[in-house]
């Protein structure tokens, strides 16, 4: 019992084990950091690619470029200009230009 108490009180060998544990922690931290940077890089690259495609789609829809990829047109649509209070109502035929998934649309007078 006395021997055990002495062992606990002793500082001998502590610096070596401490350095080992510290090295382990630093290694773990480095691995985590690398993994996080790698993940953020992947997300960033994906966002950049989506951004690029998105702006291409926006430009094509805005310019009403029917030849652009992922673009469809519909000449059978119409819009309405109206005012319920005065009874004004006018229907105008339009050509619609939209992305394949229909998220972006634009039109011009048909």
């Amino acid at each position, binding site marked *: 019992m006395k021997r055990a108490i002495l062992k606990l009180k002793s500082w001998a060998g502590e610096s070596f084990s401490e350095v080992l544990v510290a090295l382990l922690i630093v290694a773990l931290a480095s691995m985590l*950091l690398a993994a996080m940077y790698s993940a953020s890089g992947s997300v960033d690259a994906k*966002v950049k690619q989506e951004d690029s495609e998105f702006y291409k789609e926006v430009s094509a829809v805005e310019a009403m470029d029917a030849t652009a990829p992922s673009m469809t047109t519909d000449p059978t649509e119409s819009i309405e200009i109206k005012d319920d209070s005065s009874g004004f109502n006018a229907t105008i035929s339009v050509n619609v230009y939209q992305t394949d998934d229909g998220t972006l649309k634009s039109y011009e*007078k048909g």
Partner: protein
Amino acid sequence: MRRVGEKMRSRKGASMLFALLVFMLCILAGTAALTAAAANSGRYTHMEAEQQDYLSVASAARVVRDEILGSTFTANFMAVNEDKTPETSGDGTTSVYTGNKNLTGIFASIFEEYFTCLYRTHDWSSKNPDIDVMFNSRFSTTLGTPTDEFGNSSLTVAGVDGMGDVSLEILADKNYNIKATLYTGDADHKRNETVIEIKAEVKYTDEKSDVNYYYANGTDSAGNTIYGVGVRTTVVRNIAVTWTDTNATIKDGGAVS
């Protein structure tokens, strides 16, 4: 006390502290990088809605502009006044007149009354008060003195499926210039506000001419017709209004080309 001093000076445990500090910094830096990337990713969805909002306004503005540019307002009036009408009264006058007006385009029902009122109250330089009664009755409107602006500020452009409604205010001024304002959102928080101003090209034809004319004024003893000379006054008050592309300007918002 001595033991505490020793502990304070001791370097044991410093490497562990350093390691923990490095660990914390690494976690912080990694978290910051991931957060920034995630924020960029979320921005995309938001941008899509914003862009569609903008495209809705730009499309509506383009159609409204094309509708205005394709419109014309014409009105014509001609009065012929002959100062001698012996067949009826021996010393009276007789007048005939023709007059028509027409505003084309989808906004005709909004502006025709106002434009007719402007046409009627125009300061015609030919000045022939004799025909004013005929002129005014031919182009009578419910509007008295024309206001500086006239139009409709509560129109809605209902687009195709998937495109939000766009508010439209359309006003004309005394010079027939038309201004259309389009936006999404409510009037207090307008988004993508686009203003189209289209100047009118107005051509007046304002002429008065007098010519002599012969009229039958009885017969002599031999039965021959006696002719008298009268004055025939012709007044023309015409207007032609067009709205041309070159005068169309976009003050705010996106390209409406």
